[in-house]
Structure formats: C-alpha cells, structure tokens
C-alpha cells in the first residue's frame, strides 16, 4: 500500500501538474500583459503615442451576451473602418476589449483595467446595472464614455440630485422617451383613446416604458383602462389578458422583450383579445415568435430599421460573416462614431492623449457636436441624451417594415 502509486494518485498528480501549468501560463501571460500595458501606458503619456486607445466593453459571455456581442461587434466594426481609412489624423486606434459578463463588479474591474492600460475613451457599457456601476466609477477619472444601449435615465442624468453625469453620453433613446413617443403615436397618429398596458414588474426597462406611456397618454386626453403586470419567469398571461379584454381597450401597450411578447400575443389571440398591440424596441427579433395574423397592425419603435442603411449591413456581413444580429449593433456603431467624433476634435486641438484637457476636449466636442449616425443624425440635449427621430415599424407579412420616422 505504502509504496504503490495507485492510478488514482497518478491521475491526481497529473491533474495537479496540468492545473499548475495552466495557472502559471495564465499568471505569466497576464503579468506580461500588465507590464506591456504599463510600459505602453507610460510611453503614451510621455510621447503622446502613435495610437489612441479606445475601450470597448460589454457582456461577451453570460445570459445577456446577445446584446453585448452585438454592441461590441458594431463598435469594433466602425473603429476598424476608421483605422482602414487612415485613423484619426494619421493615428491608429487601438481597441481594448473586455468582457464583463453582465456583472457590476466585473464591469468596474474591466473599467479600471482599461484605465490602467491607457484608455482615452470608453464605448460601453451595455446593460443598465453594470453601466451605472461604471458611471459611478468613471466620474473619478472624467473618462469620456458613450453607452450604446443603456436606456435607463439614471445613466446620464441623476434625478435624485438633479445633476448630469458630465462625462457620460448615450447613443440610444431612453426608456421614458420611448414610452412618450409611443403614447404620442398611438393617440395622435393612430387615433386611439382607450389603451391598456401589460408589462413585466421588477424590470427597469419594462416599468420605465409603461410608466411614461401611461402618463403621456393620459395627459394627451386618452384613458388607460387597465394596467396589468407579471413577474420574471411567468409564462401564463391569460388572467391578465382576460381582465384587459373585459375593459375593452382599443390597443394594448406591451413594452416587453420579444420572447414574452410572442407568448403574450399568442395567448391574447386564444382568449379573444384581438386589438392591435404596441411595443418598444424590445420587440426587435419578434418575427419568429408570433404568427403573421397576430402581428397585423402592431407598431413598435426602434432606433434602427432594418434595410435603411445597406452600407452598414453589408460591411457587418463582410466582417463577421453573418447578418447583424439585432438593433444593438447599429447603436454600437453609432456609439463608436460618437467617440471618434470627440477624439477627432481633441486630436485637432493638438492635445496630449490621456491628459485631463484631452478628456475634457472629447467631452465638450461630443456635447456640442452633431453626429451623422446610421440610426439618424443626432445632437445631445442637456441631459446628454440623443435628440433624434424614432423609427416606427410595423409588420407586413410577418416582416418588420419601416412605417415612418416619427
């Protein structure tokens, strides 16, 4: 027993050796990465550098990775195009990419890591909670930051203290904005006066849209006949839909994400609720989840209507070998465009990359600039939200089609 090396022990030893190998490899590579970063960071500061470092972050893995990858791909695409066209005043952009897995703690780690590596501006974050954590952190560095897709009002404007987060901008419209736009559209364009709302409770996006739709619709003179809500993970909406049916609305506002909207639409049909539904940009991707009949006369708003910019869509396909996945890619593209717009101004002014003046110049340029984006031409209002038109889409034969800009 004592002198025998059992198979188990042998395997254990092999496992330990392998794990140790992996760990040393990681340790080695990360420390070299850190030292090169530190070295290049110092040279960038010293000799203003030949490259401009732009950070791109998002959840590249985890359960919201579908949005993260879309944003990061869209943003990277634009930055690569800029590089291919000679960079910014001859300087190439160096793209730093980090994966935060949709987690606030990791997002802050990613952010500080990229700051240590000499980042001059950030494109990110993607979902609201990690973005808020990064916003709180980035204020300490006055780091120019453009989020492609975080729609919560609090990202750029803090209503509690009535202050604007000076260094933060966003490319997408906000939750309140979508709710208000859809209320306007329903009342003014579609002529509805009685609406009901069904939304997911406990989710910032859904609540934000629903609340603002209700307020706007009522202030226009319409009546909200019923407000129903459901919780995360619910799959049966028949109770709520039957209640709505009993209140006899002309339309139902359903500001939820497409998987649930699909289920709600089919169940609405089965309880006999056949009035047209309205939604927000979470409807993007709905076409596989509902029948053509169910989608008839429904309207939703989006930042970008598919097919409205063939150049972008072709470039995306050429770069990644697939169609752009959802509306987050064009927004990532526009966020990158916004950042580059700011960097261009700072470079034109001949400032040294990474200095406080440089960052401030980027921020000032974006705040007063006009961005000619693929989701529309936009400027920024006093809350650093983009001022732009909304694409209103409807379904024709089950395919989303641009109805009009509103």
């Amino acid at each position, binding site marked *: 027993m004592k002198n025998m090396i059992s198979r*188990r022990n042998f*395997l*254990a030893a092999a*496992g*330990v050796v*392998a*794990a140790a190998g*992996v*760990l040393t490899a*990681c*340790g080695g*590579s*990360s420390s070299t*990465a*850190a030292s090169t970063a*530190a070295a290049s960071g110092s040279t960038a500061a010293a000799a203003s550098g030949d490259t401009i470092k732009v950070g791109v972050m998002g959840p*590249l*893995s985890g359960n919201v990775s579908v949005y993260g990858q879309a944003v990061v791909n869209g943003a990277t695409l634009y930055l690569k195009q800029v590089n291919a066209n000679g960079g910014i005043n001859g300087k190439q952009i160096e793209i730093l990419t*980090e*994966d935060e897995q949709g*987690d*606030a*703690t*990791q997002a*802050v*780690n990613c952010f*500080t*890591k990229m*700051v*240590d590596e000499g980042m001059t501006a950030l494109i990110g974050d993607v979902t*609201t*909670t990690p973005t*808020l*954590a990064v916003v*709180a*952190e980035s204020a300490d560095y006055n780091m120019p930051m453009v989020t492609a897709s975080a729609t*919560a009002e*609090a990202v750029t404007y*803090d209503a*509690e*203290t009535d202050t604007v987060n000076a260094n933060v901008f966003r490319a997408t419209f906000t939750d309140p904005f979508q709710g208000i736009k859809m209320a306007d559209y329903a009342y003014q364009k579609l002529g509805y006066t009685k609406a009901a709302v069904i939304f997911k*409770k*406990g*989710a*910032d996006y859904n*609540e934000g849209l629903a609340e603002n739709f209700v307020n706007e619709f009522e202030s226009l003179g319409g009546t909200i006949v019923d407000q129903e809500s459901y*919780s995360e993970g619910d799959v049966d909406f028949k109770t709520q839909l039957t209640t709505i049916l009993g209140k006899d609305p002309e339309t139902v506002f359903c500001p939820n994400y497409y998987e649930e909207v699909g289920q709600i639409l089919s169940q609405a049909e089965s309880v006999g609720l056949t009035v047209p539904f309205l939604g927000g940009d979470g409807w993007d991707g709905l076409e596989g989840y509902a029948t053509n009949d169910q989608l008839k006369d429904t309207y939703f708003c989006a930042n970008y209507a598919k097919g409205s910019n063939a150049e972008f869509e072709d470039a995306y396909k050429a770069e990644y070998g697939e169609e752009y996945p959802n509306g987050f890619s064009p927004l990532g593209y526009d966020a990158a465009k916004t950042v580059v717009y700011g960097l261009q101004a700072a470079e034109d002014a001949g400032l040294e990359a990474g200095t406080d003046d440089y960052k401030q110049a980027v921020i000032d340029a974006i705040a007063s600039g006009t961005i000619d984006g693929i989701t529309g031409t936009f400027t920024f209002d006093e809350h650093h939200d983009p001022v732009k038109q909304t694409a209103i889409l409807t379904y024709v034969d089950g395919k989303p089609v641009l109805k009009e800009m509103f």
Partner: protein
Amino acid sequence: MNKNRKTLKMPVRYLMNAVLVVLLFLALSYMTGNMLSTYQNKVLMTVGINIILAVSLNVATGYLGQLPLGHAGFMAVGAYTCALFTKYSPLPDGVSFAIGLALGAVMAGLFGVLIGVPALRLTGDYLAILTLGFGEIIRITLNNIDDVLGYSLFYGSKGLKNIPKYSNFANVFLCVVITCFLIHAMMKSRHGRAVLAIRDNEIAAESCGIQTTYYKVMAFAFSAAFAGLAGGLYACYIGVLNPSTFGFMKSIEILVMVVLGGMGSMLGSILSATVLTILPEATRSFDSYRMVIYSLVLVLMMIFRPGGLLGSYDFSMSRIVEKVMNGELFHKKNADKEGADHE
C-alpha cells in the same frame, strides 16, 4: 501526552498572531500603494469581501454542517442597510461608515435569527430549499417594496445609486481580520465546541445537555451577520446596488468557495475565495476560454480532492511554533496526529 512538552501561553499566542497580522497589513498596504495598479487594488478588495462571505458561510456549512443556499440574501440585507444609512446619515464619513457596517451586520444577524428559527427544524435538502426561498424573498421584496409602500427609498430594479464609496483596502482588510478573529474565537470557545458536537452527532449532543436549537440558531445568525458585513463593504465599494446582484447564483458562488476550500477549514475558505476571485481576472487574456478554466479547476478539484483543498484542516501558527520549540517539526506522523487531536 508528554507532560514536559513546551507550550505557548495564550497571551503569547495572541500577540504572535497580532504581530503577524500587522506585518501582513503593512506588506499589503505597501504593495497597494506602490506596486499594484488601480485595477489590481480593486481585485484585492473584492478578494477581501469574498473572503468574509466564504468564511462566514463556512460557519453554517462547515462547522454547523447545514447547507444554506440563501447567503446572498443576508448579504443583500447588510448591503441595503449599510447603503441607506451611509447615504442619508449626516455624520462624518468614517463614523457613518462604521455605524453603517455595524447596522448592516446586526440587521442581517436579526434576519438570520428570524429565518434560523423555522429553518433549523429542518436539515439537508429541506433546509437548502427553505433558505433558497428566503434568498429569493429578500430579492423580490427589495424589487417591489417601493411600489408597495409608495415611496422611493430602495429604488428596486432602477438601482440604488449615490452610495458613498467608503470602502478602501485598509477598512476591508480590517473587516477581514475582525471577521476571522471573531469566528475563530467563537469556534474555540465552549459555544464553538457545542456547534461542532451538533454537527458530528446531533442526538448525542442533545443527550449531553447541549441546547441544539439555541446553538444552531446562534451559529446561523453569526454566519448571517458577517455576510451582512460583507454586503455593507460591497455596497460602499461598488456604489450602486441592484437586487438582481443578490440572486440565487451569488449564493451558489459563495458555497462553491467554501466547498472548494474544504468545509470546516477557515484557511481553506480564505484560500479558495482568493483563488476563485483572482482566477477569472487573471485569465482575462484567454477571452471566453477563461470560464472553461474556472470550471475545469472545479471539476478537477471535486474529482481528486472531494473534501476540498484543505479538508477540515485548519492552520495554526502557534501549533507550528510549539512543534519547533519541541523539535518535533520534522519527525512527523505520530506527533502530528496527536497535535491535531489535541487542538
């Protein structure tokens, strides 16, 4: 046992450990000031917070022998209590942070008692399910409480913002030391032995006159209180709280740390919390493969060391020093065994 064996007196032991802790603090704070980047400092702080979480869960899992899955719930209670207090208190920074952390720990401890009384009538799977449910109740309550009560305090899914960022390396380190010391002291006391006795054989313990319910609830509340402390530190570290952070997966994450380190080993919890926090960060350069590395380490560990890194072994500096004094360090086995039993 040899009666002539040289031993260290208790005050000497404490003094020795205190000196070592101070030395460690000086070494680490020198590093944070001079050698580590901002990013590495941030990671070091999350390591500290995770150590407190793992060590505190170890009380309920390793020492008490139960399987609670609601640790993130207690963390949430502490985090929100501390966040709200520090956010609105007019007191000077340091004072308000200290009181906030204490309040967070006390509040989480109270919830520990509250949930412990009914939960600890159960064991095993049933307790796991009950505590899991409790964790979810906390999360969902935090999501909806503002709507129900009709004012804006917790901000639910919008996220509680503008929490002052008081956490820094020094106070996280201090909290880690306090946590480890208190838990260690508790486990070496009469109460701790009672808790261990309950773990090893509840019926035998009860027949010896140990009030099992009392001690179980006490250990459980103790565990919860330190989770609350970690929550408070986390709140003042990240600056933004959202109930979704404290979901079921967070509880599992902490449990993995404890199991990997060895249930019932404080040093094991500390080691595995450190390794499991640093590993995903250190392997960032591997992109998406890094999650595979993390999982692979877990799988290998569970196959080859099912008892965890250190099993139930606990490190004792004094024990080693005593062995050196008696010249026993290198003649192994028997002395070693006796020493371990003695401890």
